[in-house]
């Protein structure tokens, strides 16, 4: 497959080509002291020259000296907010005498292009696809958004300390299909993107860009950048062998480590909101003041809330111990039974955005140690 070089000075041409093709371009931008995902109109919206410093319960922006556009790691947002909307109308109902009519909410679904999707995030989208598109039932809202999606994936050259994609086999190099794949390379004064088409739509966009053919040297520089990221993670404290996670957790439903994590966990649901694969939702039914018009809305929900498991007689998971156990065991074990993959992609969001600094990789280690005595 032919690879091309796009000079960083021409990155805006990519954004404009996507916009001209009818896509609403979504990508990283600086807001509220973080790099978040929002609509991108021009290259100036991108967080050029910004990186981040992440640790347990910590996220800080950090200036970079190299002018990189994609020199940051996963932030508080994930792409799921564009595919599984945080809040959406489901239907409206109108009462007339003894009867009622129910009308499905009509959504205007935009064609979106995600700019700068990391490999871990492609895996997260694929995980949600298995819930909402290819499972027994299809979620129309998600499926329609997904079907129109164009993805510009970025080989990851900036891992945070919280990242552990190498442990979950989801990165840092792109390993799933996308429409365009790119690697940002900064070598001295040289700043370019190595680009590769992954679909007919992607090739079509490529044809509109001022590209030059990639040489051996371009390839080597790009590969080196990704390899360094993988090495950084492999040498970091969060690297672990995930091969036996499912069996480990299934053996340890009664581990004393659950009590320990429950002592610290606030049951605040932050991890589930930041997680790119967490898919739980609930519905709210309301009426207006006349009582004749009702609506149903769907919104994100979390297994950490008190009423999540409510049945007649009370909540099944009444304490934090059982809720944290449900969340972590679902991510790392039962997800395999349900959807044939891990529910964790190793992006580290739950670690950085936990207000008390609970680290899922540490909890795995704690369970392992408790088991081995």
């Amino acid at each position: 497959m032919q690879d091309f070089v796009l000079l960083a000075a021409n990155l805006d041409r990519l954004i404009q080509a996507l916009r001209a093709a009818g896509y609403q371009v979504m990508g990283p931008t600086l807001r509220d002291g973080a790099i978040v995902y929002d609509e991108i109109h021009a290259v100036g919206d991108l967080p050029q020259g910004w990186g981040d410093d992440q640790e347990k319960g910590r996220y800080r922006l950090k200036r970079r000296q190299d002018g990189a556009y994609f020199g940051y790691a996963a932030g508080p947002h994930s792409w799921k907010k564009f595919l599984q909307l945080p809040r959406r109308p489901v239907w409206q109902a109108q009462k007339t005498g003894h009867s009622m009519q129910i009308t499905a909410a009509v959504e205007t679904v935009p064609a979106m292009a995600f700019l700068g999707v990391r490999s871990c995030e492609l895996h997260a989208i694929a995980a949600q696809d298995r819930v909402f598109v290819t499972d027994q039932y299809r979620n129309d809202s998600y499926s329609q958004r997904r079907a129109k999606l164009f993805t510009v994936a970025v080989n990851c050259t900036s891992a945070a300390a919280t990242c552990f994609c190498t442990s979950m086999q989801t990165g840092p190099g792109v390993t799933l299909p996308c429409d365009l794949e790119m690697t940002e390379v900064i070598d001295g004064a040289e700043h370019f993107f190595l680009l590769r088409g992954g679909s007919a739509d992607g090739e079509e966009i490529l044809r509109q860009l001022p590209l030059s053919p990639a040489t051996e040297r371009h390839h080597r520089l790009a590969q080196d950048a990704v390899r360094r990221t993988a090495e950084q993670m492999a040498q970091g404290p969060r690297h672990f062998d995930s091969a036996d996670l499912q069996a480990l957790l299934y053996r340890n439903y009664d581990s004393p480590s659950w009590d320990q994590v429950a002592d610290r966990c606030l049951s605040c649901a932050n991890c589930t909101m930041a997680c790119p694969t967490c898919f739980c939702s609930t519905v709210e039914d309301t009426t207006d003041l006349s009582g004749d018009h009702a609506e149903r809305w769907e919104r994100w929900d979390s297994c950490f809330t008190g009423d999540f498991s409510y049945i007649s007689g009370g909540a099944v998971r009444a304490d934090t111990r059982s809720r944290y156990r449900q969340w972590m065991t679902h991510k790392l074990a039962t997800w395999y039974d349900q959807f044939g993959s891990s529910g964790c992609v190793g992006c580290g969001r739950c670690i950085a955005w936990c207000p008390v600094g609970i680290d899922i990789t540490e909890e795995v280690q704690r369970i392992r140690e408790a088991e081995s005595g």
Partner: protein
Amino acid sequence: MTPAIYRIDSRVEEFPGTCTVRISPESAGGARRCSAGQFNMLYAFGAGEVPISMSGLQGDGSYVHTIRIQGLVTRALHRLNEGDSLGVRGPFGCGWPMDKVAGRQLLVVAGGLGMAPLRPIVQALMAGSARPASVQLFYGARRPQEMLYAAEVEQWSRALKVVTTVDHADTGWPGQIGVITKPLGAASVDIENALVFLCGPEVMMRFCIQVLLAKGVATEAIYLSMERNMKCAIGHCGHCQWGPNFVCKDGPVFCYRDIRPWFDIRAL
């Protein structure tokens, strides 16, 4: 997925706070196949939706549901009268394995409202279908006034072996007093050939399973219906997760052999 509009054809108050309704689609052509053990999501205007099991199989596109007041939505549903409308999504889930009944010694074990999803089984047996070798119904309730389908149970007891127990009785109660595990434990069971359909509060099912296993009934011969919070009924909302299972689509009826490791974990 929007609900279809159904109208209440008939409504019977079983006992205060619990009613059984028969509902038909407002517009024709809405009839969908359903089986015993499955459930519908019933929508009360503006109040919300709740999962309610099939309490009868009409075969004509109408549904029968028994509703007990538990919260706001069931209260709103219970308040509806004949002629009122409600929304219906369904049917959902996996029902009782009726294909396994032929030639077996069938034990139907119900506790309280757990009789509701088992009623279509007994009705089918009364109508001569499924051809089990024998049938025993064990039905426990809190008090005599809280027995569902009282007149029908009386009829059933003339054709089938029916054992009823209540926790608290008044004078004039002809059945047994105590929990259902006692007569279940005393029943003669052909362990090679037994098949058990079990539904009731989780604690009641737990004790019944202990009794059945102690008698030598095989784990694969026991089927039970589980209850968990259900919002979407199609495996998307995540609420009904129970270990690796989504109760809404993998259940609510499970074979005990398949869920045994999960059944023993509390607060799962």
